[in-house]
C-alpha cells in the first residue's frame, strides 16, 4: 500500500500536480534608497506542532475547560486553550512584535517542537532592534487549479548601525481570546544565508500559502 502511495506521489510531483499544501517564503533586504542588496526565496521549513494544535481547537470546538494545551512563544503552557475568533490571527499592526511575522538571529534547524524564534529581534530603534511595520495580505486568488495568498511585513532599521546575522523568520499567531489572544509559533524557517540590514534599510518577508487541487 505504501509503495502504491509513493508511486502516486512521484507521478504527481513529476507532473507538477502535487496536491500538497505549499508554504514558501521570500526575503529581501533593501538599502536606505530602496535598492535590493540581498534576497532569498525558497520552500518553507516548516509549520510546527502548534499549527495543528490550534486547528484542532477549532475543528473539535474545544471550549473553556476542555483541556486544550498549546505552548506559547514565551515558553509557558496555555492549558486552557479553546476555539476562538482570534485563531491564526497574524494581522499584526505597526510597532507590534508580540505577533505576526518576525525575524531573528538564531540558526538552529527547525524542529516540530519549536515554539518561538531562537533569537527574535525586538521592536525599536536601539541596538539590534527593528521597527515592525504593518502586515499586508493579498486576497486568495485562483489560477487554474491553484489557490494562493500572501502575507508580507517589513522591518526597518533605524538603529544607527548595520544589523547583521538575520538567519530566521517565522510567524507568531494568536489563539484563544476575543480581543487579544495568546500567541504561539505557527511556522519557522532558517534562511540559507545570513542577512545584513544597513542602517536606514529594511528587510521584507513575504510568505505565500498555496494549495493545488
Amino acid at each position, binding site marked *: 500500500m505504501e509503495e502504491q502511495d509513493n508511486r*502516486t*506521489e512521484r507521478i504527481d510531483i513529476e507532473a507538477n500536480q502535487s*496536491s*500538497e499544501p505549499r508554504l514558501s517564503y521570500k526575503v529581501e533586504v533593501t538599502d536606505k534608497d530602496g535598492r535590493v542588496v540581498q534576497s532569498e526565496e525558497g520552500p518553507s521549513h516548516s509549520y510546527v506542532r502548534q499549527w*495543528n494544535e490550534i486547528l484542532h481547537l477549532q475543528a473539535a470546538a474545544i471550549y473553556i475547560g476542555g483541556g486544550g494545551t498549546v505552548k506559547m512563544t514565551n515558553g509557558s503552557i496555555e492549558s486552557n486553550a479553546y476555539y476562538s475568533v482570534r485563531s491564526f490571527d*497574524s494581522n499584526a499592526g505597526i510597532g507590534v512584535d508580540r505577533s505576526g511575522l518576525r525575524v531573528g538571529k538564531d540558526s538552529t534547524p527547525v524542529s516540530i517542537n519549536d515554539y518561538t524564534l531562537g533569537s527574535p529581534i525586538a521592536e525599536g530603534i536601539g541596538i539590534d532592534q527593528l521597527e515592525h511595520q504593518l502586515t499586508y495580505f493579498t486576497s486568495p486568488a485562483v489560477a487554474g487549479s491553484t489557490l494562493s495568498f500572501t502575507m508580507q511585513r517589513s522591518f526597518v532599521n533605524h538603529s544607527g548601525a548595520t544589523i547583521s546575522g538575520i538567519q530566521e523568520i517565522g510567524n507568531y499567531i494568536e489563539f484563544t481570546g476575543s480581543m487579544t489572544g495568546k500567541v504561539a509559533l505557527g511556522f519557522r524557517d532558517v534562511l540559507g544565508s545570513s542577512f545584513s540590514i544597513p542602517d536606514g534599510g529594511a528587510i521584507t518577508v513575504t510568505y505565500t500559502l498555496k494549495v493545488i*487541487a
Partner: protein
Amino acid sequence: MKKQLWYKAIVRDRNGKVLSRENRRSRSILGNWYRILYAHMALTSISLIHTSGIDRGVIYFGDNWKFKADANEDSIGIVIGTGIAAVSIDDYKLDSQVMQGTGSGQMRHLASIPDWPSVAGSNCDFLTSRTFLNNSGGSITVRESGIYCRVKGPTYYGYACIVRDVLVTPQAVPDGGSITIDYTLRITA
C-alpha cells in the same frame, strides 16, 4: 518540510471482517480551507460558497473549521458520496452525497470527534475519523469523501466543504457493513 493530508477508507462486512482498504494522499484540501484561513490570519471576510451553493462568505469567527460531528449529522464532519466528478479547487460540496438514514442509498452517520494532535519524531499528526453504517437493505458503492465544516459569513451561518477526494477504488459497502474514513493532517518539520 511537508504538510500533507492522507485518507484511509476501510470497508467491513456485518461481522467486522475487513473487505477492502485504501490508503492514499488526499487530493485535496480545497480553496475554501485557505479562504477560511485567510479570513482568520488577516482578520477580515471574504467570498466563500457554502455547501448550500450560495455565496454567503466567511468572516473570522470562533465556530469556523469546526468539523466535530454528532451522530446522524450529515451536514458537518467527514462525509461520503457516490459521485465521480474530478476534484476542482473551487468545489463547494460533494458531487453526490450519501445522506443520513436507512433508506435506499443512505447510510447512518456515526459521531466523529477529531483526535488530539500527536507528535512522533519530526511529525505532528492530526487525525479525524468517522464510520458510516449501511442499513439500507442493499449495497452502496462509495466513490468520494470529504470534510464539511462550520463556517460563518458576515450575516449567515452555514457549512463549507474544505476537503474532497475521489477514491481511486470504488468501495462497495454491503448491507449490514460499514465504511470508516480517516483523515490525517501531517506536518513534518
